[in-house]
């Protein structure tokens, strides 16, 4: 696979950032190389320096960042010494980059076709006369249906997957020799992720282009890369071809990372670095939550008819049970959870919780309902779900202040106890959210949700924003809490691998309806519905 002279060779690269507390080394002595036609995966958790490595290739580091040492050689040229004029020519024409959030990478007030033209004209790959045709061709190349129409579309008119295709079209319009993709599919649905990644791989093969895929997802890197570089805390710890890496990981960090990535046959305890006994769940009890024919309609602007975001769904959660709700973005799962949580009024249908139809209570008045404390939620984004002005202690104590009659002293003790239960060191309780790591913030969110001894907790993608090793710990924490406290979960996610680990039963949702539901094992191994099969197929698995 590897050619004699690599296209890009980074040697002993060290990048420093000047901060208020002196210089910080973001990456240290990083060496890696990519050959023509090769796809290299750079894998690591947040803060491992994978993005900084990529940014330094194009020299688009923040102003505070500086290459302190080492060399970057791109087809015989020293990029680390090149001046801005040369770099301007190289960026986009020789080396292109795709970023994480495609919508943010596009100019919101310019039609996407024009934006592709801009790139072509900038690098004189097209003249005024044929730019339009070339742009349409570029759109065609990324399999955008009806490219003449889409040429005039604004980014907000396109879905996330379509936007990423446009970004890829822009990146590839000038036929670069190297494509750097920084988490190109994070935030996209699994089926879209599959389509986008296959497109990238196919195009790079067609054009004999080298590609660097930066990702936190080992499964994704395994599925689409030839070689993988594993980074930890600014250093490269291991470089190996995909097969070797997965069969015989050398470095302890790689081994840990592999362990915490859920596989088809993993049990929840397998994800942890040390062996633990499997959690013992109490047997399921009587039905706790019964949802019948739940509907939510939203008015469409300027039209008399409405759209049904949730279209008559029915299901039951038993006491002590963990039910998974799986679906892609826009399928209505968030609307469903908002209605269950009584944050949103229902259009019709019943939500019977502990024998009472809580759908009849308007959302605005549910705050003082006696069942409020029994129905809690853990939110998707641990950062967004904590008040930035409140300390962790204050956030955890808030439900106790509002809905319990504990004294100030008792509350303190309860917060201590909760922190201990979710594994949050008690010296972190006085910190503000921005002083906590993602995993710690997730723990604060979980502690807050269980503060009032709820019977049902809705978990809305609680690990989507976390690194895999942190995800492993949080999933195990959730399993322990369920085993110890007998809480029922409704686990909303797009990740079927996680469902396999934590749910007894699973429902698959699409376009506001539930396509199928049943025991997790059965649904995942013998899916009845074609859509479920598509979802299952789209998940990249480590070999």
């Amino acid at each position, binding site marked *: 696979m590897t050619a004699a002279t690599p296209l890009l060779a980074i040697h002993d690269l060290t990048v420093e950032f000047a901060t208020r507390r002196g210089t910080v080394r973001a990456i240290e002595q990083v060496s890696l190389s990519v050959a023509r036609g090769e796809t290299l995966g750079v894998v690591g958790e947040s803060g491992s320096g994978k993005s900084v490595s990529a940014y330094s290739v194009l020299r688009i580091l923040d102003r505070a960042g500086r290459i302190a040492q080492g060399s970057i050689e791109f087809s015989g040229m020293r990029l680390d010494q090149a001046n801005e004029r040369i770099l301007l020519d190289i960026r986009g024409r020789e080396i292109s980059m795709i970023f994480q959030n495609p919508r943010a990478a596009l100019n919101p007030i310019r039609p996407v076709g024009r934006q592709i033209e801009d790139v072509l004209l900038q690098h004189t790959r097209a003249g005024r006369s044929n730019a339009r045709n070339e742009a349409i061709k570029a759109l065609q190349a990324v399999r955008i249906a009806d490219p003449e129409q889409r040429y005039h579309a604004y980014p907000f008119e396109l879905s996330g997957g379509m936007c990423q295709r446009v970004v890829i079209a822009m990146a590839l319009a000038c036929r670069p020799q190297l494509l750097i993709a920084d988490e190109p599919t994070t935030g996209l649905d699994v089926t879209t992720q599959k389509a986008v990644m296959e497109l990238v791989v196919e195009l790079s093969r067609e054009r004999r282009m080298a590609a660097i895929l930066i990702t936190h997802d080992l499964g994704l890197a395994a599925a689409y890369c030839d070689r993988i570089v594993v980074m930890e805390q600014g250093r490269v710890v291991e470089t190996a071809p995909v097969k070797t890496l997965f069969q015989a990981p050398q470095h302890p960090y790689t081994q840990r990372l592999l362990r915490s990535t859920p596989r088809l046959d993993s049990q929840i305890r397998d994800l942890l670095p040390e062996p633990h006994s499997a959690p013992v769940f109490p047997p399921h009890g009587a039905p706790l939550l019964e949802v019948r024919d739940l509907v939510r309609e939203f008015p469409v602007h300027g039209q008399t008819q409405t759209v049904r975001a949730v279209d008559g769904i029915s299901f039951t959660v038993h006491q002590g049970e963990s039910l998974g709700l799986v679906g892609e973005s826009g399928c209505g799962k968030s609307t469903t959870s908002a209605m269950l*949580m009584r944050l949103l009024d229902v259009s019709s249908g019943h939500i019977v919780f502990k024998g009472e139809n809580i759908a009849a209570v308007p959302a605005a008045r549910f*705050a003082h309902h006696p069942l409020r404390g029994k*129905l809690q939620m853990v939110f998707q*984004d641990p950062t967004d779900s*904590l008040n930035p*002005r409140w300390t962790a202690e204050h956030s955890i104590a*808030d*439900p106790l202040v509002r809905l319990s009659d504990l004294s100030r002293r008792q509350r303190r003790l309860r917060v201590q106890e909760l922190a201990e239960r979710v594994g949050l060191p008690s010296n972190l309780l006085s910190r503000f959210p921005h002083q906590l790591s993602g995993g710690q913030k997730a723990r604060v969110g979980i502690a807050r949700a269980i503060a009032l001894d709820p019977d049902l907790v809705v978990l809305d993608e609680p690990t989507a924003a976390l690194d895999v090793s942190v995800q492993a710990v949080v999933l195990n924490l959730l399993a322990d809490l369920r085993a110890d406290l007998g809480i029922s979960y409704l686990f909303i996610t797009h990740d079927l691998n996680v469902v396999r680990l934590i749910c007894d039963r699973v429902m698959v949702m699409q376009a506001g309806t539930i396509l199928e539901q049943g025991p997790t094992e059965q649904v995942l191994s013998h899916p009845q519905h074609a859509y479920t099969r598509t979802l299952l197929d789209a998940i990249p698995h480590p070999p």
Partner: protein
Amino acid sequence: MDTLAPRPNTLGRHFLYVLSSNPVTAIAFALFTLIVLTGIFGPLLVPYDPLATHSARALEPPSWDHWFGTDHLGRDVFSRVVVATRLDLLISVAAVSLSFVFGSLLGAMAGFFGGWTDRIIGRVLDTVMAFPLFVLAMGIVAAAGNTIENIIIATAIINLPFYARMVRAEVNIRRNAGFVQAARLSGNSDLRVLATQIFPNALPPIMVQLSLNMGWAILNAAGLSFIGLGVSPPTPEWGIMVAEGANFIVSGEWWLTLFPGMALMLAVFTFNLLGDGLRDLVDPQRRT
């Protein structure tokens, strides 16, 4: 248990940190303290009675006796400039507080409830903004009468839409934030969510507006006085002093306008510099 003990004087330490991290902020706070102290103690310390006339010594240039010279009635300009600080500060602080409180209230309601509340409040504010603001202030004072209260109210009204719009936008983007939803789940009613969760988080940008506004308010009050619609003579006030002194510039008595003008400029300058510091002070992200 020691970790849960109340943190000792964190805000104080944070304040010192903000001052030390940015020299401009430190200067601004120093000047601000000076202005406030002048406002409080100035009248007790001045060498002359600001209202005492002394026709024998009219229009004297600055000297050791009269640092800023004397005006056409022989009053000491230095004493008048110092004494005027209290009144100008009072007008601007009162006006800005009023527009901050009512503007925030209206803006928060508009941003939080949306719909008709938003539309009605929005259109009323647009109506206010549609007038040339200074002319509106003139109109209010002219119609309601030439008193300090009316100057304060007029200044407050013309500044109110800025706060309302800003707060509306800040509240609106946080209306469905995760922590707001979480607070609802914790049993907080809508109004409590607005007051304890959303509004405090909208404060940092408003702080900048607040201090810039203080500068404008002082200028506005002085402007009203300058055209004769504000504080009436012989009360010492920077605007009037500049207006009165303007007649004498032609004949070369520059000190009558220069010193009150400088005081005015220094105050506005201080408030403008203060903004960033105030924002850093209320922004928890800076509290590391």
